[in-house]
């Protein structure tokens, strides 16, 4: 009888270490060549379809993209960004924690992609968030952008103003 329990015990004793011992083996299993090839082929097709769609929906002569990036201290928590072009709302985005982390690490979000005629246009952007001690922030910025023949890229960068440590928009045309 005791032998049985010895056996059980021996089995249990092993498990705490197993997680380290077999980790590498499991990672490899299942990754077969066909799945890898399919992934590569779908990625290439997705790229081609994406470019086709962009050419058809947003031709370079009228294409405009608005990007959001951040360069702020850890005390500012972004909640949302709203963008208006020529008085029309084109984006109103609420951020998840995962997206915020990605922005803080240097990621850049394309918040809007659309079409504009060549010439001058008005861009208005607002962001809301929370600063130190949970204080609510809402800041806005207005700028006039010049749309030429090629694609137009506008970056809305949320930065800390060093004089008052409050976040503001820094708008850059690329």
């Amino acid at each position: 009888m005791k032998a049985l329990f010895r056996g059980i015990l021996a089995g249990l004793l092993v498990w705490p270490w197993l997680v380290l011992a077999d980790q590498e083996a499991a990672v490899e299993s299942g990754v077969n060549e066909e799945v890898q090839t399919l992934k590569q082929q779908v990625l290439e097709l997705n790229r081609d379809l994406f470019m086709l769609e962009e050419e058809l929906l947003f031709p370079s002569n009228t294409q405009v993209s608005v990007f959001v990036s951040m360069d702020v201290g850890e005390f500012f928590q972004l909640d949302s960004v709203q963008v208006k072009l020529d008085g029309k709302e084109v984006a109103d985005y609420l951020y998840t924690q995962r997206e915020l982390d990605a922005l803080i690490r240097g990621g850049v979000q394309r918040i809007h992609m659309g079409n504009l005629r060549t010439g001058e246009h008005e861009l208005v952007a607002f962001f809301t968030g929370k600063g130190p001690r949970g204080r609510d922030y809402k800041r806005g910025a207005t700028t006039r952008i010049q749309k030429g023949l090629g694609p137009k890229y506008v970056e809305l960068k949320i930065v800390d103003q060093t004089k008052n440590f409050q976040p503001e928009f820094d708008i850059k045309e690329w």
Partner: protein
Amino acid sequence: MPKLALQFLLLWIGLAMTGSSYATSVKPQQVLDLHYGEVLFHFYQEDYFTAISQLMVARQQNLLQHHLNESDLLLGGLQLSYGMPDQAERRFDRLLDQNTDADLRNRIWYYLTKISFQRGHYRSALGKLQKIDKPDDKSIGTELAVLNANLHMALGENEVAADVLENTRAPDGWEEYLRINRGIAMLRAGNIEEGRKTLDKLGKEDADNEELRALRDRANLGLGYELLRAGDAQQAREYLNRVRLQGPFKQAALLGAGWADAEQGDYKQALTPWLALLELASYEAPVQEAHLAVPYAFAQLGDSKRAIFFYEQAIGYFDEEQQQLDAAIQGTQSGVLLSLLSQTDTGIAGGWLHDAPTLEGVPSGRYLVDVLSSHSFQEPLKDYRDLGYLQQLLNQWLENIHLYYDMVDARRLAYQQRAPLIRERLAKQQATALYQRWQDYQSLTVAQHGSGDPLDLATGKEKQQWRTLRKVQATLASLPPEPRRTNLLAKARWLQGILYWQIQSNYKTRLWDVEKQLQALEGPVTEAVSKHQQVSDALDNVKVGFDGYDRRIAAMRQRILALLPRIQASRDDASDQLQQLALKELETRRQRLASYRIQARYALARSYDLIAQQSGEQP
């Protein structure tokens, strides 16, 4: 318990995959191309498919001029994370062949080390790891040290692994992980005392977050079991007592604590944790084993009646669990597992499954979820989910593709309506005529330098005045010669002279001014001609472009249609593989339960015999 094992596993893999600080440069990255930043935005969210897609598009459109080398490396890393190690390895090998700088080479060797590690080529991985220069950054150094130690442990070189970890300075947040691994490596290397000290210290420390508390529990549990195996039950009990009863290792700790007491002959004390396990109404291994351990303890205490009661209870419990397992096996054979798998399609780009699926409509689902969450299922499950996402994506493209045909048709119609008007206007050759006039003026100014007739540069008004004066003179000349006519003629000649003098006196200024204006006009006039040609060419090319779009869309549609059945076939393979693995796992559990049941019945029979013997002995 398997799920916990998975979580721990993912933690370690996660540390060494592309999300690590060594895979990308130290944050935050300075982004010089917006599109590179966009790729990073998805990469940091572990949305590898979208990140790779964006990166491929940006590279194709030549939008990553400032991050070209990094983007190549990032693409390889993303491929590795997305489960494309073959493509990643080829890319890294190619990058190594180029004249890459030291930093880039180090990062490439890191990735190649990871690939060899994943494939189980540990010795080769160690060789690659040694090619990486010692980094200045502490966290990168720690990451490499952990990788190094893991490789040595995988090779059974636990002493070396322990040394590596011993000599590594840990940055914030790493210290506890290094210590638990060092402790494990030492125990594995047979250095029980040092390993025990390391884990003991870790197990006693205060922990201010759940992750660290779980790590502390793990150290205490591991140490407790190790000491039980070594025969030091008293010490083992102390470590097992430290494991939190509200933590993830509660069941294993209770079982071990009972065994520590039993090993010391204190079966009464052992009953406390074991009976607590029975109250948990769980199906996990420690509870199953406690169902045997409790009557065993009563038997050892000489309480045969209670032993019989609990053996019978255990048999009932095993029977019930066996029914559940049989139902799970039957369900798996009849496709229930596939229904459960469909709950793992979350609509995002595949990847690791972080949350267990719900059990809606799945009989005996708890066993299946348990099996799915276990270690060996993760890779085929990831393949299954990745393929599901690809299938969903291509079906969406297929649904949308007729819209692209419509868009091209709409443009074709607009072209057919507008092109004739534009052609008509182009036919007027306005730009060419304008250019011709410019050329004429240009020739005139050149000729002025030779002939120098100031009247050529007279303004329109002056020319009109000149012509009027000439006409006046001609009229006066035809009148009878009277003194009044002579005076008027003289006056007209005088005025003509004044006009000529005015024109002639600033002739050089006028010539310079004209030349300047002609020079300024050259650009716009040439551009007008060029635009005229462009519009003309575009009109000819647009039609060809429409046909080109039609061909491109048709070709892509064909590619989608060719890929979909292959994806379905691979997904079927993956689900078959999962089904086989599930059946194997469930069968193992069934056999284990059957074995417990046999043991319980055997022990029950012995208990009855004992009672009968005792009854027979009594007068």
